[in-house]
């Protein structure tokens, strides 16, 4: 199995050379498929990231926007989200430590642990799941990447990677496709597949990235949009208003006490 992974990696390398796109993006050292995934993740999350964003959920019946402030400590495997608006949800918080997730409900001043059975439930009515908050911390650790090829999107050239879960990796998806801008390596599209009963893979949802602008020297997409395959007319857009990478985050942020402190938030 280790052997197979190594072979797959080797094939990815050969593939890279074969496609011959490396010359264009200039680095002298050939980049492995794993390195590409790592860079895509780094571009999105850094080692830490503090973010202000507006999430807009659209369904055929209604549209609703939620403002939030989030802190993501990737190296410490923990994150924190505070909902700022709408008024009814203001103060609601989410604290993640590893695979554990708690939510704070200000109306009843109560911290609730979100049980494993609810991990695949929608998060705040969006097309993201609770699981999305917990996982994706380690695409590199959980999946084996392989180069797929290249394609065009809005005039820029994308390079695609196929990610298959490593054996025993605790993942939900049977297959992932990651598409990066060839030039900048900014992520543009994540496609999520699950294994279908016939042995193939069925597309479940697509996360598209747009409005790539540099932040602290890295190409960062400021607009994300998730579209599930099984719910026509549903989509969740994520517009990042402000982001700061690699700042030191205090331990105090990731505590239940902080989760409960819902006054004076911004």
């Amino acid at each position, binding site marked *: 199995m280790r052997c197979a992974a190594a072979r797959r990696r080797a094939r990815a390398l050969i593939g890279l050379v074969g496609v011959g796109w490396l010359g264009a993006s200039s680095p002298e050292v050939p980049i492995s498929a794993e390195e590409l995934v790592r860079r895509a993740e780094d571009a999105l999350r850094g080692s830490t990231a503090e973010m202000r964003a507006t999430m807009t*959920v659209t*369904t055929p*019946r*209604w549209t*609703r926007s*939620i403002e939030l402030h989030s802190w993501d400590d990737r190296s410490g495997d923990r994150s924190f989200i505070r909902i700022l608006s709408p008024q*009814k*949800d203001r103060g*609601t918080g989410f604290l993640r430590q590893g695979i554990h997730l708690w*939510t704070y*409900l200000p*109306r*009843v001043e*109560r911290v*609730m642990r979100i049980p494993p059975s609810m991990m695949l439930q*929608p998060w*705040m*009515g*969006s097309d993201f799941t609770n699981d999305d908050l917990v996982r994706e911390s380690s695409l590199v650790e959980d999946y084996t990447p392989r180069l797929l090829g290249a394609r065009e999107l809005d005039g820029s050239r994308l390079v695609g990677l196929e990610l298959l879960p490593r054996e025993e990796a605790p993942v939900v998806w049977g297959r992932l496709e990651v598409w990066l801008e060839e030039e900048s390596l900014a992520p543009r599209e994540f496609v999520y597949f699950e294994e279908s009963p016939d042995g193939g893979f069925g597309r479940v949802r697509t996360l598209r990235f747009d409005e790539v602008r540099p932040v602290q020297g890295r190409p960062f997409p400021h607009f994300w949009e998730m579209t599930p395959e099984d719910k026509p007319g549903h989509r969740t857009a994520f517009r990042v208003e402000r982001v700061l990478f690699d700042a030191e985050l205090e331990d105090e942020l990731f505590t239940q006490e902080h989760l409960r402190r819902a006054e004076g938030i911004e």
Partner: protein
Amino acid sequence: VTVLARLALRNLWRNKRRTALTVAASVFAVFLTMVAESLAAGSHKRWIEEVVRRYPGHVEVMARGYRDHRTLDYGFEITPERARGLEGLAGAEGWAPRVESWALAMPDQEGAFGRAAWLLGVDPSRESSVSRLGAAVEGELLDGEGGPEVILGARLARSMRVGAGDTVILLSTDAFGSQAADRFRVSGTLEVGAPEFDSALVLLRLDRIREFLEYGEKVSHVAVLARSADAAEALAAELAGLFEAADYEVLAWPELLPDLAQLIEFDDVQNRLTLGILILVAAFGVLNTVLMSVFERVREFGVLRALGARRRMLFGVVLLEAALLGALGVAVALAAAVPLVLWLEGHPIPLGGSFGEMMQLFDLEPVIVFDLERKNLFGTPLVMLGVAILASLPAALRASRGHPVDAIRTVAT
């Protein structure tokens, strides 16, 4: 024709005891059938009434898709125009708007467990015109102005160790899929006798549940009570005119309560089978009598034929005999059964013993009720008559066949 009738009557008179016995068999069959059918019809109506008034109503109107998904996504608003339409329904006794969803209910203490609960929002004044939920409430109804209130199913309340005056926390998902969480004062408990209510129901006022779940002016469904179970279909048709089929579904009680509908159907089939056998036995009695009398009269028929009577006439005489036998039985049975059943309609028989207790367990009043339905009143006698005539066909054929000369030579036995 008069000759025909006279012949037939004379034949019946000839062996009075046999005729009487045959008539008695059909009286017995028809009487039993009519009483049993009235009993079944009465009980079935009672079951339907009881269950329908407990909560669902005879007919429910819901947005297309709600039936399968049962989520807040499939709510609809009652426009003033539709409300007027509902108000003006000819076949309805009342209607009530409702909002249904699910929640986790827990007592207001740190570390308390959550229990799955069925959220139901009702308009108390309207609800009382459709269901008896209000009657099952112990404590105040939901008309207090002291903040958000709920009435809990009695067993749910007991399992959470809360009672009137305590506070519970409800966690749910609002219309936008986001968390809904709030505290509610328990104003009372409710005991219906059915576990799906008593150990799960959380009853709220319509405006409170809408506020809690951000549901605007929407409802999950509208329940409508018909004047009687028989009128449910007509009411459903009336409602279908008000809510167009492209966007709405109008479901009558057999679809709302498939278990009950099936139980009734099963009971009906069982009844028909038993009663069918009873009628069949009576019919064989008629066949036997008529056939015997035909055998006895071979010579007589031969003479009639020789005198110029047509085959058709002989055939008619025998059929008429059978019909008279049947009619006599039916007439006596009707004379006995109809007054009895009509009297029983007004005087339900109270049930004791284990069966009565079982009915109480299902929250049904332990009485036997009768109801004489038109299809029973006219159907059963017609079936008896028809079967009697059919059964005598072989005898009639026998009488009309054969050669007059052979017949006259036959020695009567």
